[in-house]
């Protein structure tokens, strides 16, 4: 009698730690095809195509510069408002898009997830990666302005920390995805949380140095209690590092940057565990 071999066991036990990491590794092609699908489908039958990726942050930046920067006087000191707001807006948009787009992983893809099995994490990962396409278009747009401002010499001081920008982007994507999959796991049964996402994200942006320069605010002076609380927002040190590297404005608080990374790691792990716990039976409740 030969020993029967099994390659896969579909278990009834529902453990969060039972993740299909091995399967995920074989899914590189699938992830890239999903990224491509998202990109192609998004801009098909639009005249401007990927240019739309620029239009949204451009107008946001214009509005921020005029109203927050000039009228309310919340802008940066020493650098032009436009590049200050543009840099903040595009990294914030990357984070916010990763969060909102992955937060409805289960609900938006129930048709396909209900029919075939592939490691479920493929879906949010490819969603997060596809946010980078739009981001890099915006990033190139920002670099154009950066070059312009450097030529006109208005006080921008790019420095060696510019090299850390891939790390910042990676961290924000992981953080956004971590929160997103957490929400998607929690919304398979109750959709209430999905309602919170859109306005929650915009409220969050006001708690982050996107529409104002935190270092020109006396209330947020380093060392104060309010500063310490404010810096616990994991997005804040990341945006600060990004701006510091490219524009030379503000400062980087490495202690809080470390805390921000720790938060990111915790959020990502908890998110993945919650996601893995709910992915097995979400089809029954979604």
């Amino acid at each position, binding site marked *: 009698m030969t020993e029967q071999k099994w390659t896969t066991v579909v278990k009834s036990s529902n453990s969060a730690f039972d993740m299909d990491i091995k399967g995920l590794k074989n899914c590189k092609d699938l992830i890239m095809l999903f990224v491509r699908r998202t990109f192609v489908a998004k801009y098909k039958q639009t005249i401007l195509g990927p240019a739309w990726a620029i239009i949204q942050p451009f107008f946001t930046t214009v509005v921020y510069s005029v109203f927050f920067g000039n009228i309310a006087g919340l802008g940066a000191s020493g650098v032009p408002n436009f590049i200050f707001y543009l840099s903040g807006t595009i990294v914030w948009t990357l984070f916010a898009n990763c969060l909102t787009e992955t937060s409805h992983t289960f609900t938006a893809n129930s048709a396909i997830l209900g029919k075939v099995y592939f490691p479920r994490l493929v879906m949010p990962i490819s969603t997060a990666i596809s946010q980078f396409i739009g981001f890099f278009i915006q990033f190139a747009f920002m670099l154009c302005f950066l070059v312009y401002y450097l030529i006109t010499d208005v006080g921008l001081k790019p420095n060696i920390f510019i090299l850390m920008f891939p790390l910042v982007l990676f961290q924000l994507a992981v953080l956004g995805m971590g929160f997103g999959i957490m929400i998607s796991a929690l919304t398979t049964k109750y959709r209430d949380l999905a309602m919170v996402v859109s306005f929650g994200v915009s409220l969050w942006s006001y708690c982050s140095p996107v529409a104002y320069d935190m270092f020109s605010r006396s209330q947020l002076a380093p060392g104060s209690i309010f500063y310490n609380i404010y810096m616990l927002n994991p997005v804040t040190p990341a945006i600060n590092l990004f701006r510091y590297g490219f524009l030379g404005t503000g400062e980087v608080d490495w202690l809080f940057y470390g805390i921000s990374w720790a938060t990111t790691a915790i959020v990502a792990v908890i998110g993945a565990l919650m996601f893995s716990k709910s992915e097995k039976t979400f089809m029954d*409740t979604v």
Partner: protein
Amino acid sequence: MEELAIRVEHVSKEYRLGAIGGATLKGEIQAKIAKLRHKENPNLKIGEKEHNKNERFLALNDMSFDVKKGETVGIIGRNGAGKSTILKLICRVTAPTKGNIYLNGRITSMLEVGTGFHPELTGRENVYLNGAILGMTKAEIDKKFDEIVEFSEVGQFIDTPVKRYSSGMKVKLAFAVASHLDSEIMIMDEVLAVGDVAFQNKCIDRMKKVAEEEGRTILYVSHNMATVKSLCNRCVVLSHGQVAFEGETEEAIAVYMADDNLDNTTFFDTSHAKRLPKYGQKHLLLNLHMFESQSTVLEYGDKFPFRITWKSGNADDRMLMKMVINGIDATPVGVIFGGELKSEKGINSAEFIFDTSYLVPGKYTVDVILYDQYDSGSILYHDRATALRFSIEHSDKSLKLKHWFKDWGNAVLPCIEQIIGDDKNV
């Protein structure tokens, strides 16, 4: 021991009935808190117990079966028997509540054709995307691409967005992708229900080829008994979430068809049968009685008398009866015409003799149709709900049917006469 491809071991799947969770978030939190404090759930009605059995529904109830490697197994059963649920579990779309399922090899599921087709992408892009969703790598699809396109018959449109495709083209392309995958186990749920006849036959041939030449395992779910018959060598019949029968296809289909009519009565009450208004309400067939038979199980060649009783609104002498005999898979075997039936106002009856010697052993159902002989044969009474059921058995193995073979069909036609002697040169 033959190698197994799938083992389903004591699998149960439970669903909660009614609204999701049957409660609000608030109610559920209250219940959780109460549980933590070892108190009763405040939202339960007095006397109601936690985990009320009535709120739960067992779609699968302790189901077990094995599928050997290289087998083509049909899964049949009525709606709600648990066919789709077990396939979903095998495909890992959702997890069982109890029990485990063991799989040996990669799985491709074709639960619904075109899963993951994106309307904006072209046929080519969708082939890659769909293939990847079903578990192939890009390199594997590259290798099979030409074969897939050729099989799908949509080569001309391969660079057109799929949203411009007709539904038939989508189906063809999707089937082509799924059937060219290198997976060891293929799962198909009613996939052949679409597409034209030529393509359906092509699909079945492809499936047979996949099963026989490439030695892959196929699980096939369908209500179309003809395709089940031609494709599967073994069937599992499901009923109420359990395996009702497991074995040879022919027998399994018989079990499935007989699922709801195991009663052995010779009196068939048709008075409550639903009738379509377009057939008129002038005459109503009340019942049909095989008044001399003890049982609906007959011996091959038996003749049995039966009586039909009907109610008429008016006297009528233009009515005829015909009976359509159907085989076990609801394919018509033939028709029998009866003579003129005279109706008085009120209850009428007529007796006939049914000669079964034209039917081979098997299970049959009979539709009784009353129609008007002058008014261009318009139907006066017709009910698809079968009026009569019987089965013919064959115990003494008479000469003619000694080696009766299912592929011969269900009807034995009258003899052909042999031409003898001088007539030869006519």
